[in-house]
């Protein structure tokens, strides 16, 4: 079939509107996973200031915490982590064969979304405190 036509990635457009819950869960889980591993690397890098002595460590951390962007990013990180955890738990159950029915898995995905939302909203004051 040398003559056949490959639509490449274009064919995915127009599809996202029809994504099923499981698809969204997959997209979000992927995204959050990458953010988390990215953060892990950054985090260790930042903490490495400890190797330069205690003052450097304390300064670096507190200095960063002074910045509003960092605080906001931290809220984002919380959101990401919360979703990854909750959806991760959902996936673990699915791996165990619990809640694999189509409608159950949809509901559990929505539940993890909503819970993530609640956790984030509730935590915002804590994170932004003292700015």
């Amino acid at each position, binding site marked *: *079939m040398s003559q056949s*036509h490959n639509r490449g990635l274009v*064919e995915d457009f127009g599809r996202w509107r029809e994504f*099923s819950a499981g*698809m969204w869960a997959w997209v979000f889980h992927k995204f959050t996973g990458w953010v988390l591993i990215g953060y892990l690397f950054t985090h260790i890098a930042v903490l490495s200031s400890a190797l330069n002595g205690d003052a450097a460590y304390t300064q670096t951390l507190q200095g960063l915490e002074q910045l509003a962007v960092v605080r906001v990013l931290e809220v984002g990180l919380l959101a990401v982590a919360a979703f990854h955890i909750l959806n991760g738990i959902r996936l673990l159950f*699915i*791996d165990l*064969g619990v809640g*694999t029915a189509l409608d159950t898995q949809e509901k559990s995905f929505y539940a993890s979304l909503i819970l993530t939302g609640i956790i984030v909203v509730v935590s915002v004051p804590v994170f932004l405190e003292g700015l």
Partner: protein
Amino acid sequence: MSTQTPDTDDSDPQAERMARKDERAAEREEAASTPDVGDDAITLKVFRYDPEVADKQEPRFDTFHVPREPGITVLDALIYARDTYDSSLTFRHSCRQAVCGSDALFINGSQRLGCQTQIADLNDSETVRVEPLPHREVVKDLVVDMDHFYDQMDAVEPYFSPKEDPDGEQLQSRENREKIKMSTRCIWCGACMSSCNVAAGDNEYLGPAAINKAYRFYFDEREGEDRQEERLRIIEQEHGVWRCQTQFSCTTVCPKDIPLTEHIQELKREAVKQNLKFW
């Protein structure tokens, strides 16, 4: 046998009924043909491509107007468009009853069988957008190359093969048949494969249909345990079950309602269980 005679007197009830029927059909036809784009016509947007026809080499969408009949399916609409407007409109179809698996298409953004999809049931039943299955090469119009799908099916040794030839009728418990029942319903339509993003990315991934086929034999108690191990070996290869990310797209689109994700997950657990045993 005389009871088999319908009223044989001069009036011909069959002819009369036929006449009434023709009248009704004519009325419907009339209603449909007055302004072609009548309020109630369905707008069908169809993907067109043909490597040999100059103005189709660059894919495009053609629009057809199809009269809305009660219960009209996407396949009916395509047939109407082909037979009325453009006989070169090309798509696979055969059984019209969701058993041959020929007409899995991408309809309004989702994989569906044309013959099983009533236009009235679509979210947007005014405009129906029909494309060939995504993530497959297009041969022409709505026809895609299915070879890769068939190759993946072949890869799981999709045939019953007990260690020894059975001697006469084998017994199978009702529970066991029930267990594999859903998995045996696959009609090889390819909708699941097309909907799975992992399969789209990883060409070697066996894909939900093939894994489901493996499931069908793995759990068939008639095959025997030795075979189970060999089957496990096939599906737990790197591009086997592990690639599944539980997207559930396959399960969502399967026209035969096969719980594909569940089947794949069950096999993952089987594989882990087996390997834990060896440790």
